[in-house]
């Protein structure tokens, strides 16, 4: 049962990832990305990482994918595949891809993975929270400060030059 679900989820992930890479229309690539994210979230659930799965959906689907779609929609003539998704340098990229594939499959086959049988589906949120507040407090705080800096920077960049625009549209801040 679990194996079947795993196969289905990985198929969803891989097939939609192929759509992301191979489709000539950027919009379809973005929609393919949606299903890749959902497949990965499902794999997290199978690995009994429920909190991580929900975070995956919330951050990647609810945040990043929406931003990607916004960016795609705002660019002009997007469904014209020659403009939006041209192919350059096929030979070098093919070499890089094959090399990377070889490296990763070598690593995947030869590493001795710590196999855990009989995974129990226990709540992870409490443990995660405790670790974030004790052992990993410094990295957590550093990342939050970095994100805050990015947020302030974005707000500053999108603000119209002071003095030039007397009536600044407040909408800018919402983006």
């Amino acid at each position, binding site marked *: 049962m679990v194996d079947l679900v795993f196969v289905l989820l990985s198929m969803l992930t891989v097939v939609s990832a192929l759509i992301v890479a191979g489709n000539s229309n950027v919009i379809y690539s973005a929609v393919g990305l949606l299903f890749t994210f959902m497949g990965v979230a499902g794999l997290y659930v199978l690995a009994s990482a429920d909190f991580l799965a929900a975070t995956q959906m919330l951050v990647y689907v609810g*945040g990043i994918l929406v931003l990607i779609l916004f960016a795609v929609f705002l660019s002009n003539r997007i*469904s014209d595949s020659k403009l939006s998704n041209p192919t350059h340098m096929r030979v070098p990229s093919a070499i890089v891809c094959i090399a990377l594939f070889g490296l990763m499959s070598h690593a995947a086959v030869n590493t001795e993975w710590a196999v855990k049988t009989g995974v129990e589906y226990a709540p992870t949120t409490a443990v995660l929270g405790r670790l974030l507040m004790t052992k990993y407090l410094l990295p957590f705080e550093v990342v939050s400060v970095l994100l805050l800096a990015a947020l302030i920077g974005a707000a500053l960049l999108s603000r119209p030059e002071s003095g030039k625009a007397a009536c600044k549209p407040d909408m800018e*801040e919402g983006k």
Partner: protein
Amino acid sequence: MEQLTALIIQKVPALAVAPWAVTLLLIGIVAFIILQFAMVFAGFGTYLERKIAADIQGRIGPNRVGPIGLLQFLADGVKLILKEDIIPTAADNHLFRMAPYLIFTGSFAAFVVVPFGFSLIAADLNIGIYYVMAVTSLVSIGVLLAGWASNNKWSMLGGMRAAAQIVSYEIPVGMALIPAVLVAGSLSTQDIIRSQGGFLGIFGWNLFHNPFSFFSFFLYMVAALAETNRTPFDIPEAESELVSGYNTEYSGIRFGFFFMAEYADVFVVSALATACFLGGWQIPFFNAASLPAVWANLLSLGVFMAKALALVCVIIWIRWTLPRLRVDQLMRMSWKYMVPLTFFNFLGVSLWVLIFKGKGIPQLIASIFG
């Protein structure tokens, strides 16, 4: 679920050859019941909305189909199914077809963790509230795609507005629910409700736990109203500006999907507010666990539905009495007022829980009198 499967196999030994089939069947039955409830509620919601709107505007409302028009929603449903499903030639065929399903899935998946009663819940996930926040993010994708795929300026504008609004108000919605999570010490909806029981009756509710959680309830209702795209925050479909927003080009049952998702959202918002702040299915001054299982479930279901439906009525009442906000006012409200207020609340509740060891004001008063 495992216990139920084991019980069924024990009763009918012939099924023991395929226990997974029994599990699958049980999952299917639960999913079917939840889906049916959501569908019927969507129909009933349209009826309620039209009746309340009619009362507020001094009209009569639907009164022809069935007694006092109660069967109107069935007639509407049949009409929507029978109507031609038009796909504009200029639209993007695949995405246009897919978008309503995404919105529908996102809204209806939230019903999984709605705690209908003492033990009536599809799946008591231990990340309950967080799960709702996660799956509803599908809705914003669906809305964006619906707007873009229609290849129509109004739809596009509506889709963009809706997505910007949902993304912005997701933050205050999540932050406003945190007080309930902090007080209960759990994200599971059932645990949150269980923490609101006890001898204090309605004063055990999180609403009266401390000043911050009291305030948080109202912040949640306002932010959640904005997230469901209803008046006074319905700028994505503002009829006077955008015809009908992102669903302008849709017809037939695909249009019906948008409507069902909207009413499903309204119910989920009310149900979550009930569970997190209004004590959920707790029967005042009764311990549901001490009653016989059937009665405990029926009574708690009744209590929960009464509270949730009252909130649904409030949401409809707000829609027909307030004018809508402008786009920039909406964004200013989210980022300049709602977000800072919910952050302040978050801090306040955290300190309260820390200082008073998780005890609320009613409990503190009760402990004074022994």
